[in-house]
């Protein structure tokens, strides 16, 4: 085994701990957006698909790589847009501390798509 793999294993193990620590206490209202948001984050596999397309030769490899890029783009773009739509619903929250403010829905900042 080369030292390279050991370095990657180290990164892997540490990232695992970070992943658990960083979402320690999530209120259940955010379970769905969090799932959707992390779903978008693993869409970063797009980087990997672009890299393999670069080194692909021949029809088989290039076809497989083409679909890989396509699927990864669906994942990353769709994931971020859908999550943003879910979270849009939460934008009026601070304004509603007082009881009757419910009707005065202000225009929240309209964030651009990913």
């Amino acid at each position, binding site marked *: *085994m080369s030292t390279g793999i050991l370095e*990657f294993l180290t*990164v*892997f193990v540490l990232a695992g701990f*970070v*992943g*658990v620590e*960083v*979402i320690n206490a*999530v*209120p*259940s*209202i*955010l*379970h*769905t*957006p*969090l799932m959707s*948001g*992390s*779903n978008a984050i*693993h*869409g*970063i*596999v*797009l*980087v*990997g*698909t*672009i*890299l*393999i*397309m*670069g080194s*692909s030769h021949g029809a088989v*490899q*290039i076809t497989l*790589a083409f679909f890989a*890029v396509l*699927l990864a*783009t*669906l994942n*990353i*773009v*769709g*994931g*971020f*847009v*859908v999550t*943003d739509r*879910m*979270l849009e*619903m939460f934008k009026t*929250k601070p304004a*509603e501390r007082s009881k009757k*403010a*419910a009707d005065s*829905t202000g225009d929240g900042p309209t*964030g651009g798509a*990913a």
Partner: protein
Amino acid sequence: MTLNTWIDLVYLLAAVGFIMALKGLSSPKHARNGNLLAAAAAALAVGFTFAYPSVRAHSLNLVLTLVAMAIGAAVAVPAARKVKMTAMPQMVAIFNGVGGGAAALVSIVVFLLEAPAKPAVYRIAEVLFGVLVGCVSFAGSAVAFAKLQELMTGRPVTYPAQQVINAIVAVAIVSLAVGTLVTGSVPLLVATALLSLVLGVIFVLPIGGADVPVLISLLNSFTGLAVAASGFTLDNNLLIIAGTLVGASGILLTRMMSKAMGRSLANVLFSAFGSVVTAAAGADGTGESRSVRSGTPEDIGVLLAYARKVVIIPGYGLAVAQAQHTVRELADLLMERGVEVFYAIHPVAGRMPGHMNVLLAEANVPYDQLKEMDEANPEMATADVALVVGANDTVNPAAKNTVGSPIYGMPIINADEAENIVFLKRSMRPGFAGIDNELLFDDKTTLLFGDAKDTLTKLVTAVKDA
């Protein structure tokens, strides 16, 4: 510094962005910014990837990459923009599945590139892991989508000798994987991939519709791990970090979700095996011969208007009918009359944990009127009316009383403890879990059939007249 070092630094920046984004996503205040931060980090990383000379070495490949990205974006953006809030869970399942598929394809192509000179065993192991987990996630998400979209039954699918068949598939995959490890043969890897797709399907089939959200969270975590595996095959730290973050946090999130349902993850995933008989026993006595009491909107309007305390229990039916605004109108009207009103939210109301909160937030229901199950249940006994709007499984007492019922052990909102129970329902059809609800036949229960939005509108008029 070399170009590669610069790109690696950008990747490090993106990884930090992802970690901070996940942190933001777990608090209501920063969630939206967290998501935008993650999107920005991803865009930066993808953009700098094109700086690699290898990516631009062959112009045909580069053009194909850009074409595939353009097609992907052109499909994904409108799909994600137009999807109804009620169909979000299916959408997440699809986006997750394609991610798993992409990760599996990356591993396969890397293997094809390296196969001529037989790669080291640990290289093959990395590839195998990515292919296996990615394929399971891809096929499993597709079945989960079909269940949620009601393209197939939401009930657990069981068939004779299920465990035997599963065992055979598992053994076959292990043998093929070992074979691939030893020989480095491409056909064996392809066979492993195909069988992993089969495994994904048979893994998800026996999971009941009500449990699918937990399943999607688990598959999300799987895809994360598959992406981490493709990071190993490509020697790419960014993919390893991002994939592992999602994999680890996804497992934790999955556990939180199954905990919210009062069950262990193993119970959610495997409880349907060999339960054909008990499931049938739970569904006997189908309501045809038994009588239910249905009321008029006027009767129920009076009941609500003169109550002291009304608890609204929303479910998926409310979401389907897009009735979240009407239910808020009814609640506001009752509160003006001095009735105490709150919403009791089951953790898995709707089809995903937190789904109902999102929908009610869309209708500007103030957060202090939303009570989570644990907070609401002690108050149920003192409620005059429990108004169940399009919910079913989440108030089904079978979860407490009927051992062997598919939902036995799931915590429910104790609607049965209220003085009166009013069900707004489309029909006598059972809920998503596919089992009957005893509560419908209770003496305290009144039913009002129809689309939730129609019946709620009628109730608003009736309360005004009362």
